[in-house]
Structures are given as structure tokens and as C-alpha cells.
């Protein structure tokens, strides 16, 4: 399970306890389901302090962990496919192309 | 601070169990602690003199001591106190009671009512174990046999 690949920039993510929704640790020390709210640590030292801070604020989330991101046009994008899927959702239509008539 | 909670037993023993190695050198001691890798057969004839056997759960998900408990109770006829020590969680108590444990060590916070509640959490069991509860299959068989006997009595009468 390649959660995390090496990278200089890191964010912290977790799943929300009550419903499992993917959340990100924010600048204000809170959790948000919006990836754009994620606070980015831009060097390993900052990442090392970010994770404990996030864990300290994790009563309503499950098992926070660091995710490597790269900056594409200034915006963070997770390095691993797994984390891109967590941010972007399923990579295929849930029903077959011609199946909407059955749904 | 570790508290010992009683299951079906009135008062847990105040003896402190010897580690198995020490006990094997002093078979007169009445309490032993068995690591979960040891076979209960090692207790040999000394079993008859034991008043307390402590079985250990190094992690709650290491379930070897359940089998040790059933062997001690069901196979070897041990009737003294059987105590669960280590990582003993409230949600395991129903299983432990069924395997023949009758006292439980628990650090902070202690179990409180949990031990008593565990005994009645499930009104139905599906398999014979060391607690003499009657499995559902046997209750069904008895009910059918009873109904047939009643029917036979009616037709005779």
C-alpha cells in the first residue's frame, strides 16, 4: 500500500470518525473535507511538527498521516495514485456507460 | 493499580501467582501464572493442589489463553480460580466467561459493572463451552422431543 511517496512538500490527511469522509488538516488547526484548505509543510522539518499538531487535534478523525504532494502551478497535487484517488474520488463512472437507463 | 474483578466466583484469591518456572521448583505453591505459549499439561499432578491459575493475554488479540482455559476446565477438570491477566478488555469478557475464566485483572479504569453485564449480554449460545450453558441446537432438540412426547401423551390419553 503506497500511501506516501517521498517528496519535500507534505500535507496531513485522515478520515473523519463519524462518517469516514476524507479530511485534511488546515492552517487554522482544524480539519476540512476540502483539499484546497490543506496546510502544506514545505520542508521535512515543518512536516515533522505538522503531524504531531494534527494528531493533537484528532479526536474526531482516525489515524492522521502525512502525504507527499508536489506543486503543480503552485497548487499541491498528491504524488501517489492512492492519495490522488482519495482527493479526486473514483476514477471510473459508477455504472456502465450505457447503464443510466437501468439506474 | 490493578484490580481483580470476580466473575462467578465470590471473592478472588489474594494469592500472588508464581511464574511457571518458579512454581515448577516449588510444586506446593497454590497459585501459578502460565504463559500463553505453555501447555497446561506442564502442570501435571501439581494441578490438584492449585487454587489459582493466571492465564495471560499479552495483547487482547492474542487468543491462545482461550484454548488453555478450555483445556484446563474441560479436559483436565480444574475447578480452582482461573484468572485472565494482561490486555483484558471489557468487550472480550463474554468470551472469557464462556471459556471458564472467573476472575479478571484490569488496570485503570476498572470494569465496574461490565463483568456482571457480560454474563447476560447474549441470551443465546451456539456451542458447548465451559460454562454449562445449553446451545441453541440442543434447546431445539429438547423442545422437539418435548413436543413429540406431549403429542404422544395426548394420543395415548
Amino acid at each position: 500500500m503506497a500511501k506516501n511517496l517521498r517528496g519535500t512538500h507534505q500535507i496531513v490527511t485522515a478520515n473523519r470518525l463519524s462518517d469516514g469522509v476524507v479530511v485534511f488538516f488546515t492552517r487554522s488547526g482544524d480539519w476540512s473535507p476540502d483539499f484546497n484548505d490543506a496546510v502544506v509543510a514545505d520542508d521535512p522539518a515543518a512536516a515533522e511538527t505538522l503531524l504531531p499538531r494534527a494528531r493533537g487535534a484528532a479526536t474526531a478523525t482516525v489515524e492522521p498521516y502525512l502525504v507527499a504532494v508536489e506543486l503543480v502551478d503552485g497548487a499541491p497535487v498528491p504524488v501517489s495514485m492512492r492519495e490522488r484517488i482519495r482527493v479526486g474520488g473514483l476514477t471510473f463512472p459508477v455504472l456502465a456507460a450505457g447503464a443510466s437507463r437501468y439506474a | 493499580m490493578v484490580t481483580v474483578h470476580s466473575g462467578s466466583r465470590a471473592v478472588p484469591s489474594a494469592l500472588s501467582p508464581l511464574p511457571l518456572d518458579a512454581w515448577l521448583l516449588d510444586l506446593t505453591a497454590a497459585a501459578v501464572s502460565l504463559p500463553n505459549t505453555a501447555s497446561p499439561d506442564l502442570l501435571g499432578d501439581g494441578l490438584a493442589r492449585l487454587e489459582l491459575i493466571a492465564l495471560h493475554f499479552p495483547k487482547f488479540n492474542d487468543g491462545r489463553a482461550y484454548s488453555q482455559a478450555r483445556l484446563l476446565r474441560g479436559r483436565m477438570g480444574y475447578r480452582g480460580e482461573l484468572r485472565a491477566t494482561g490486555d483484558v478488555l471489557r468487550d472480550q469478557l463474554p468470551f472469557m466467561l464462556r471459556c471458564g475464566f472467573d476472575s479478571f485483572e484490569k488496570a485503570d479504569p476498572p470494569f465496574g459493572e461490565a463483568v456482571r453485564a457480560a454474563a447476560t449480554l447474549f441470551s443465546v449460545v451456539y456451542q458447548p463451552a465451559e460454562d454449562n450453558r445449553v446451545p441453541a441446537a440442543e434447546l431445539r432438540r429438547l423442545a422437539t422431543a418435548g413436543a413429540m412426547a406431549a403429542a404422544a401423551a395426548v394420543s395415548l390419553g
Partner: protein
Amino acid sequence: MPDSYFYRYDAHDRALVAERVAQFRDQVARRLSGDLTEEQFKPLRLTNGLYLQLHAYMLRVAIPYGTLTSGQLRALAGIARRFDRGYGHFTTRQNLQFNWIRLEDAPDILEALAAVDMHAMQTSGNCIRNVTADHFAGAAGDEVEDPRIWAEIVRQWSTLHPEFSFLPRKFKIAVTGSPRDRAAVRVHDIGLRLHRDPAGAVGFEVIVGGGLGRTPMIGKTLRDFLPREDLLAYLEATLRVYNRYGRRDNLYKARIKILVHEIGAERMRGEVDAEFHALRGTALRLPDEVIDAIARQFAAPALAARPARSEDVERLRARDRAFARWLAANVTPHRVPGYAIVTAALKQLGAPPGDASATQMDAVADLADRHSSGEVRVSHEQNLILPWVPLDDLQALWRALDALGFADPVAGRIGDIVACPGLDYCALANARSIPLAQRLSLRFGDAARQQEIGELKVRISGCINACGHHHVGHIGILGVDRNGTELYQISLGGDPEAGSTAIGEILGPALTEERTIEAIEAMVDLYLATRVAGERFVDTYRRLGADPYKEKVYGHRA
């Protein structure tokens, strides 16, 4: 509930499931209030079938021996609608998974399941899992006895077993009553195969230590013939040996197959026998009247006598090529003349294998009421089965299934792809499974070509846990992750059936998705060009060996 032709819960079963739901409701509340840590809670939610996956919680519902009433299927549809995003995923182990569950809703969902005599107990965790059986049980002509009788007896015995709820690792039991073995009993922790001894008595061949995953192994026969009454004593003996001596120091070496492998089948048999002799004849003995009482509940529906041949079916078969193809692939002969077993293939062109929407589930439930005595089965190939269909109903059923997208003539063919959820859903995955399955299904979509290719089992897993059973696919595909790139490793020659069980052999280095599809196309072409009459893909592979396939796939690399 309406009539059913399999085990019906009584007051004992209902009480236990209700108490279990109440217990879990309390545990969820303690977790949400912070009384339980995630570490403490995780095993509790897992033994209630609740996983935390990539996007949400996933609830795995047990469908014991794959048998459902139409009412139960409707209840599952209702849960999909009310608590999920309107669909569910049928797995290779006769379970249904809901992918978008909220922890807060889980106790209510379990209650909704309990209302139709269903549960999610022991569908995860290191305990005895949902017991599986042949999906054609009771309807196929080739079985010694209905294996579901025994799966139900084992289900009860294993439910909340006090000694075996914290085993070294998960434990899977499968039962078959047929020599054709549609339950893959040689690749389970314990496989039970019903057969008769020379005197005609029914008993079990007990196969121990098979399994897929990281170290695939074919199980060893510990007993050729175990009398029926001793089944539970023997199972308890085996599980006790495993609980005491199975490895707990290494997650990857903790399954019973490793124990059997390390100490050898001989010693394993000796250990189990010693324990068995002490347990035999105790309260675990199964008296005939207990077996018979359960067996009676599996009595087949009263099927009206019908002609063995339907003129309507024959006329349409001659006239309509699509219908003829569907009959050839998705309709299986029945034990009872005038009836058929129909596979509703959840393998619509380009659809995620095994997925069904709530609307589709409801519709299949209606079809089961109309054409199949109200009963539906779930197969290991992630299809639904209608087991009691009169031949004269086939035409109407075909049209209705077609309208649902479930009549593609793929059963057992290359379009009948089995795939686990993979990286789109699963927290353990290395690579995606579903998009590859979809592309393969589209590539080989042509029904005439599929028919020409014939039987070919393609199975895809997104990681070495092998939920997609890739080891026993004629073509197995395993997703791997190489430095962040998804690649797929192909294996050939796997086979799940008892007589010929085989673990597939790895063909060569892993390939990209694109090249995997090309490789399969090339290997299929090779098969078509070299097969001799009557050979399936896997037979040709066995005859030719791996070299020509390697050559095809890797030989002419530009």
C-alpha cells in the same frame, strides 16, 4: 417473511442477532464519545463487518452460502438507497459490500439487516468468516447432498465462538457437495467435500491449509472420510490446534496453511487427531435429529411437473442468435426436468464487476418472485443466480434481465471478469482493478467472439491479498505498485476446481494497463490459432507450457 427454501431463523437466532446489534450500538457510542480509542474499537467494528476504506466506511454483509430470499435482496436494495449511494458490490466470498457508509448509521443498518434475518458478523477480523458453498446447491444434479445444510451447521457453531474469536488470522471454510466443486474447497483454510464411502454413508473429505494471498497453497487432505456426526468435533480440534500453534509473530505467516506447511501434513494430522479423539462423542456430536431438522429446512420448493423440453425455447433458440448465445452461456441444466438455473451476469459491458444498483436489486427480486420461487443466489464469480426457473419462463426472463443489463451472455467466458474493488475503494490496494476490468470487458465485448473463445476465467486482484482470486484464474492479474506506477502481473493456468486445482504461474515482469490488455489479446489469439478440438484456453496452456505465451507477450518487444 414469505416462504423460503433454506434455513429460517427461529427465536434463538433472532435474539442473538438483536443482542449483537445492541452490543455494537453501545460500542459505536463509546467510540464516538471517545471512551474507546481507535485501536480498541477497530477489532470490534471489524468483527461486525465494518472497515474504514479510502473514502468512507465499508460494510460487508454476510450472505451465508450465498442464498437470499427476494425479500432479503429488497432489504439490501433499501439499505443501498437509504444509507449508501444507491448501489452495492457482490464479492467473491458471497458477501455484499456497501461502500459509502457512515459509522453513525452502522447500528441502524445492522438493525435493518436483522429485520430480515441477516447480519454482518464475522465478515472480517481474525475469526471464522462467512461460510461459503456451491451457488448451485440443491438445484444442480450432481451433488451428494446439499452443502448448505452443513454450511448452516458450521455457521451456527462458529458464530461468536468463545475460543476462536481471536485466532492468529482470518479463517475461511467452504463446503461443496458436488464433484464439480463450485466452492473451490482446496483453496480454503478448511474445505469440506461431501461424498459417500463404499458403504453409501455420507461424510466429508476434510482439506486443510489451502489458501490464496501472499503464499498460495493447495490444501492437504487430513481426512478422507469423516462421519457426519463428527464434523463439529473435528473442526473444533483443527481450530484448537491452529489457535494454539499457529504463528502470531508475522502477519504473513499466520494463516493455517503456513502451520500445515511448516510442521507438515503428517504432524498436523497427528495433532488434530489427538485433539479430535478427546472431543469426539462429547456435546459436539451431531445427532441425526439435529442434522435432519436443519436439512428439512433446505427442502426444495414444490416444483410442478413440466415437460423436459420447452418448444417455445427451442423455437426461439433456432430463430434468435442472441437468445441462443445467452442459453449457451448463462443457463445451466437443472436437477429437475423442465427447469433451469439462470445466471444473471453482473458483468454488463464496461460495468464494474459485481456491482448492482438498488433498482437492479429490486428488479432481480421481482424476477425471482415471478420465475424462481422467490430465491436468489450469489456466486463466487460475482453474479446472481436464479435457481428454480421453469424452461417456459426463460424467454420472458431473458428479456427482463436484458432490460436490466444482466443478460450479457458471458458466464464462464472472458467477459465474466472477476475483480476486487482495488485502489478505487480499498485501503490496502496497490493498483486499481475495476478500470482494467472495464476496459477488458469492452475490448472483448463482441458476443460472437466470446462464444468462439469459450470458457476463460479472468480474475483481477488489486493487491496480494487476492480478494479477486487471481491465483485461480485461467488468466490471473495482480496489481502491483512500482514507485508510484500501477502495473499488472499476469499469471496463467490457475484453476479453482477440486479435481484440477492449480495456482497460476507468473508469466513474466509486470506490465502497464495498456500492455496488459494487449498481452491478453495476443494470448487469446495464440490460443485460437493453436487449440485442438475441445480445448479450453487453460487446456491449451497446459499442453503447450508457458514458453509460447512468454514469447508472444515479451518476445518481440520493440
